[in-house]
C-alpha cells in the first residue's frame, strides 16, 4: 500500500539522517514545549472572571482624581456613598454591591486567629453566582450577625464539619461581635479578581467613627461591583458619569464642578485582571504587556523552529532529488509527492510533540514556581486536541514549502547530471529565513539584557534609606496594639542589639496614598498643591538611616507636636514642625534646603467647608527617598510627626535577625496576645515589589535562550549540509593553494553574513521597543545603554554562530581534496 510505503520511507529517512532528524525533532520539541508553557500562562491570564454566569454584564467602577499640578491618581476602589445613589440614577443597573476587606481577629473560645474578612452589601451574592455548599448566601447576608465561610475556613475552624450554626467572634476594630456561620461556599477559583474567603454584611453604623471607610465622598476604600441589564452599553453609563458626579457629590466651596477633578468609569469584570487601573486589588493583577510580549515570544519561537525545519528540508533536497525523480519515473504524480512530504513533516512533528510533552511535564514545577501560578495541562480535555492540532499545523506549515520544492524536480535533469538540483531562489529564501531567525534571536537577547539591566539598576539604585537590618512589625493599626505603642517602643529600645526604634503609618513597599492640600503664604488657597503625607514617629530618620539636607529631625524635647484640628477650630493653634522632601521643595517653590528652613506652609484640615488651616514651620529637609517601587515617581512629600499612633514599628538591629525577631515576638505575645505577631524584613518588602518582574524576567531570559538555542541548532544543521554541498568547491580551492585557515574563513564568513544582516534589522527594532518598555519605569537606565546591549548581542550572536559552524568547517577543511575531486 502506498501509505505504508510512505510511512516506511519517512521512518527510514528519520533513521538514516540522524543529524537532520535529531536537529529537527529536538528543535521542534523545545519550540513546542516553550509554546505550550507560554500558552498555558497566557490562557490563564486572559481567562479571568469569565466563569461567572453573568460575567458579560458585571462591571466594576473605579475612581480617578485629577489634582492640579500632579498626574491623575487612579484607584480601583471608589467612595463608599456612591452605592446609595447609583441605582436611582441608572435604571439599567440591576444590582450593585460594595466589597471592602479588613484584616480581623477571629476569636474561637480562647484562641485568636487573623483572617481577611470581606465586608459586602447583600446584593453581592446576587451579582456573583458563588457556589454554595450549605445554607443560603442571600439570607445569610440579610442577617447582620451571620457569617459566610468558604470551605477552607469552615474546615479550619470546624474540622468536624459541623460549622453551620456555630459561632465565632470577629474583632475588626470598628466592631467586635459574635457571628453565626450561616452558609458555606466553595473556595473561589484562582482566576478571579474577586477574592472572598469569609463574608459578613456591611453595617455602616458601626463605622460612624471611621467615616472615611464607607461614608466619605472623597475617600476610596471599597470596590464597587454592579450588574446591568443585558444589552446595556457601558459606554453610555460611563458617559453619564460626569453629570452623575455633579448631581450627587457634595458641592465645593470654590463652586467648581466636582466632575472637573473626579472621574468615575467602569470596566467589565473580565477585563479587570489585565487592564484594571489602580493598585488596590484583592488578588494580584496581571499585565497585558506581559501577555502580549510572551505571546509574541511564543510566536517567534514557533517560527524559528519551523524555519529550521524548512531550511534543513530544502538544504538536503539534493540528497532526496534522486528518490523524487525515481518516484516520478515510476509514475508518482506531483500531488502525491507533495502529500508524501507534508505527511513526513507532520509525522516528524508529532514525534517531536511526544518529546515536547515530556519537556513540559519536567519543566512545569519550576515554571509554576517562577511565575507563581498553578498551571497544568489537562490531557483529558480539549487541551490534547489543541496541542495535536498545533503540532499538525506546524508540521504542515513547515512541510509545505519543502514539499513543493522537492516535488518540482525534473527527473531527467536530476538523473542525468546529478547536479545540484537547487534553484538560486530557494538558496536565497533560506538565507532570508536564517536572517529572520537571527534577527529574532538577537532582538530577544537585547530585550533580555535590557530587562535584566533595569532590574539590576533597580536593585542597586540608592534608595535613600538603609533597607538591611531593618525589621518592620505590622498590625499596629489594630486598636489593641495601638494603645500599647509607647510601651512596645520603650521595651524594644531596651533590647540588646537594637540601636533605634521608631513608628510610622507607612513601611517600605507598602503603598497607601495619603495626600493633603498645602500652600505657601503667597499662594491663594485655590492654588494649593496636593502633597503626600507620611506619618512618622521620633527617631524615624535615625532608624531608617535617612540623611538630613538641612535643619534638624523631630526631637522629644523640641515640642514638635502638631496642633490638633480641635485646637485650630478653637483658635488655639500653633505653628507645627514639619520635615519635607526635595521634590516637595520644588513643588512649592521653597528654594534650596537651607532657604526653606523656617518658612511657613498652610495645610487644610477639618471638615468640608470649614476652611480651617494648620500653620506649619519647616524644620528640616530630607532627600527624595524611594520607600515605594521605582515604577512610581517620587511624590512631593512631608514627613509629619505623629506622636501616639502608628501602623508599623520599625527596628534597626544588628546581629542575628532571628534573635531579634524572637525577642520581638515574645514581647508582642505578652503585651498584645489578641493580635497575631507579623513582621517583614524591609529588604524583603523592597524586593517583593519586583517579584512579578523578576519572575517574568527569568521566564523571558529562559525563553530567549531557548529561541537562540533553536536557531543555533538550525544553523548547525545548515552548516553541516552546506559544508557537504561545498566539498567539491573546497577541494578545488585547496588544490589551488587554499590553506585550511582560508577554507575555514570562507565557510565561517558564509554564516557570518546572515548574522550581520540580522543585526542591522534587530538593532533598530529592539532599540525602539525596549525604549518604550523602559518608559514604564520612573527611574530607568539610559536609552544609550540599549545600544551597548545591541553591540554585545551582535558580537555574542556572531561568536555563537562561529562556534556553531567552526567545528564542521574545520573538519571539512581538513579533508583531503582528492576525495572530493576524483569523481563527480
Amino acid at each position: 500500500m502506498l501509505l505504508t510505503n510512505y510511512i516506511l520511507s519517512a521512518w527510514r529517512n528519520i533513521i538514516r539522517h540522524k543529524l537532520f532528524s535529531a536537529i529537527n525533532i529536538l528543535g521542534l520539541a523545545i519550540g513546542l514545549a516553550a509554546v505550550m508553557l507560554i500558552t498555558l500562562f497566557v490562557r490563564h491570564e486572559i481567562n479571568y472572571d469569565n466563569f461567572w454566569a453573568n460575567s458579560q454584564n458585571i462591571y466594576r467602577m473605579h475612581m480617578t482624581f485629577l489634582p492640579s499640578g500632579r498626574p491623575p491618581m487612579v484607584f480601583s476602589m471608589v467612595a463608599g456613598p456612591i452605592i446609595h445613589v447609583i441605582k436611582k440614577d441608572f435604571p439599567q443597573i440591576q444590582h450593585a454591591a460594595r466589597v471592602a476587606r479588613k484584616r480581623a481577629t477571629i476569636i474561637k473560645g480562647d484562641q485568636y486567629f487573623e483572617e481577611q474578612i470581606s465586608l459586602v452589601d447583600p446584593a453581592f451574592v446576587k451579582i456573583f453566582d458563588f457556589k454554595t455548599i450549605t445554607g443560603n448566601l442571600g439570607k445569610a447576608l440579610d442577617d447582620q450577625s451571620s457569617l459566610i465561610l468558604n470551605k477552607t475556613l469552615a474546615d479550619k475552624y470546624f474540622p468536624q464539619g459541623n460549622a453551620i450554626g456555630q459561632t465565632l467572634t470577629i474583632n475588626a476594630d470598628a466592631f467586635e461581635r459574635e457571628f453565626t456561620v450561616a452558609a458555606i461556599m466553595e473556595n473561589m477559583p484562582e482566576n478571579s479578581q474577586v477574592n472572598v474567603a469569609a463574608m459578613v454584611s456591611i453595617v455602616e453604623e458601626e463605622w460612624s467613627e471611621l467615616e472615611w471607610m464607607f461614608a466619605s465622598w472623597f475617600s476610596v476604600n471599597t470596590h464597587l461591583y454592579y450588574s446591568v441589564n443585558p444589552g446595556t452599553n457601558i459606554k453610555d453609563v460611563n458617559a453619564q458619569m460626569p453629570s452623575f458626579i455633579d448631581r450627587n457629590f457634595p458641592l465645593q466651596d470654590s463652586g467648581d464642578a466636582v466632575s472637573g477633578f473626579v472621574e468615575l468609569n467602569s470596566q467589565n469584570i473580565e477585563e479587570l485582571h489585565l487592564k484594571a487601573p489602580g493598585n488596590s486589588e484583592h488578588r494580584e493583577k496581571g499585565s497585558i504587556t506581559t501577555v502580549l510580549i510572551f505571546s509574541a515570544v511564543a510566536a517567534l519561537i514557533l517560527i524559528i523552529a519551523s524555519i529550521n525545519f524548512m531550511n534543513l528540508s530544502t538544504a538536503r533536497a539534493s540528497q532526496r532529488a534522486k528518490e523524487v525523480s525515481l518516484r516520478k519515473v515510476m509514475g508518482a504524480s506531483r500531488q502525491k509527492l507533495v502529500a508524501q512530504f507534508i505527511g513526513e513533516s507532520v509525522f516528524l512533528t508529532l514525534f517531536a510533540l511526544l518529546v515536547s510533552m515530556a519537556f513540559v511535564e519536567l519543566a512545569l514545577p519550576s515554571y509554576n514556581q517562577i511565575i507563581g501560578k498553578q498551571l497544568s495541562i489537562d490531557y483529558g480535555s480539549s487541551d490534547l486536541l489543541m496541542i495535536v492540532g498545533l503540532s499538525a499545523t506546524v508540521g504542515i506549515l513547515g512541510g509545505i514549502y519543502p514539499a513543493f520544492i522537492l516535488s518540482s524536480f525534473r527527473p531527467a535533469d536530476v538523473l542525468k547530471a546529478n547536479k545540484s538540483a537547487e534553484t538560486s531562489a530557494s538558496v536565497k529564501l533560506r538565507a532570508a529565513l536564517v536572517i529572520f531567525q537571527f534577527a529574532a534571536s538577537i532582538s530577544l537577547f537585547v530585550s533580555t539584557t535590557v530587562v535584566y539591566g533595569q532590574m539590576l539598576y533597580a536593585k542597586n539604585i540608592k534608595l535613600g534609606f538603609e533597607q538591611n537590618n531593618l525589621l518592620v512589625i505590622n498590625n499596629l493599626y489594630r486598636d489593641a496594639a495601638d494603645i500599647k505603642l509607647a510601651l512596645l517602643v520603650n521595651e524594644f529600645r531596651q533590647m540588646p542589639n537594637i540601636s533605634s526604634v521608631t513608628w510610622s503609618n507607612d513601611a517600605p513597599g507598602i503603598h497607601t496614598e495619603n495626600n493633603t492640600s498645602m500652600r505657601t503664604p503667597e499662594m491663594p488657597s485655590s492654588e494649593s498643591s496636593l502633597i503626600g503625607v507620611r506619618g512618622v514617629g521620633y527617631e524615624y530618620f535615625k532608624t531608617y538611616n535617612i540623611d538630613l539636607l538641612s535643619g534638624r529631625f523631630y526631637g522629644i524635647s523640641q515640642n514638635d507636636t502638631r496642633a490638633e484640628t480641635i485646637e485650630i477650630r478653637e483658635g488655639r493653634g500653633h505653628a507645627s514642625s514639619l520635615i519635607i522632601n526635595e521634590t516637595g521643595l520644588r513643588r512649592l517653590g521653597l528654594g534650596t534646603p537651607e532657604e526653606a528652613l523656617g518658612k511657613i506652609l498652610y495645610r487644610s484640615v477639618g471638615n468640608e467647608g470649614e476652611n480651617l488651616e494648620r500653620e506649619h514651620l519647616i524644620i528640616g529637609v530630607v532627600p527624595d527617598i524611594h520607600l515605594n517601587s521605582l515604577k512610581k515617581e517620587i511624590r512631593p512629600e512631608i514627613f509629619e510627626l505623629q506622636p501616639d499612633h502608628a501602623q508599623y514599628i520599625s527596628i534597626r538591629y544588628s546581629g542575628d535577625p532571628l534573635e531579634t525577631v524572637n525577642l520581638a515576638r515574645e514581647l508582642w505575645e505578652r503585651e498584645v496576645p489578641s493580635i497575631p505577631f507579623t513582621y517583614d524584613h524591609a529588604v524583603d518588602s523592597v524586593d517583593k515589589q519586583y517579584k512579578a518582574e523578576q519572575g517574568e524576567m527569568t521566564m523571558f531570559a529562559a525563553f530567549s535562550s531557548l529561541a537562540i538555542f533553536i536557531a543555533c541548532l538550525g544553523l548547525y544543521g545548515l552548516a553541516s549540509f552546506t559544508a557537504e554541498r561545498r566539498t567539491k568547491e573546497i577541494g578545488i580551492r585547496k588544490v589551488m593553494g587554499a590553506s585550511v585557515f582560508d577554507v575555514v574563513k570562507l565557510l565561517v564568513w558564509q554564516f557570518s553574513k546572515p548574522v550581520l544582516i540580522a543585526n542591522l534589522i534587530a538593532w533598530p527594532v529592539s532599540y525602539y521597543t525596549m525604549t518604550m518598555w523602559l518608559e514604564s519605569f520612573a527611574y530607568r537606565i539610559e536609552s544609550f545603554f540599549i545600544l551597548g546591549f545591541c553591540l554585545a548581542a551582535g558580537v555574542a550572536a556572531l561568536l555563537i554562530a562561529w562556534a556553531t559552524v567552526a567545528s564542521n568547517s574545520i573538519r571539512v577543511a581538513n579533508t583531503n581534496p582528492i576525495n572530493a575531486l576524483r569523481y563527480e
Partner: protein
Amino acid sequence: MLKLQDLTKAYRTDEVETVALNNVNIEIDHGEFVAIMGPSGCGKSTLLNIVGMLDTPTSGHYYFKNEDVAGYSEAQLGVIRKQHIGFIFQSFNLIDELSVAENIELALLYHDIPASERKERVATVMDKVGIAHRAKHMPSQLSGGQQQRVAVARAVVGNQSMILADEPTGNLDTAHGQEVMGMLQKLNEEGTTIVMVTHSPSHADYARRTINLLDGHVVTESMRA
C-alpha cells in the same frame, strides 16, 4: 624536474592492505610531456595525486627539484604545490558559483598577488585559450570543451612549471579533445612540463614518452622519436 625512487603507496582499510603503487621508479625532466596509461585501477590516479602532492607515499622518495618531499606535511606540500603545479581534471572541477574569470583567478587568489595584476594575468590567459568572450559566464552556461579550456587557463595562469592532467579529454568529444590536446602541446612547446593520465592512445601520442602502469608497477616506458 622530479624523480620517484622506490615509491610505494598502500591503502589500509580494516586489516586489508591494497597496494596501489609498488616500487615505482620514474624520472621526469624539465620540459617533458609524459603520458601515463594503463587499465582502470592500475594506480594512475594515485601516481598523479602523489606527483601533484595531493597525497603522500607510504614509502620511498619523491625528489621534486632535487628536494625530497616524501616526508613533507600537507601544509609544506601545499606551499610547493601552489608555486609549481597546475591541475586539469577529467570533470573540469570548476566552481559552479563563480564566473569563468573568477574561476581562473582562483589559482592566483591564494598567492600574494595584487588584484590589478591578477586581473591582467587572467585577461591574458583567457585570450590565450580563446575564452575571453565568455569571461562573465558561469560554468553551467559553457560547453564541455569551453569548460576544459577554462580549466587549462586556470592551470597555467600562475605560471606553473608543471601541469598534471588527469584524463583531460575523458569527458569531451573528439573535436574538443583534439583542441585541448593542441593547447597542452603548445604549452609544452613553450616549456611547461606536462604529465597526463589518459586512456586514449591517440592522445598519448602527443606525448614524447609514455609510461604504462599495471597493478602498481611500471611495465613499459616508450619514447617517441
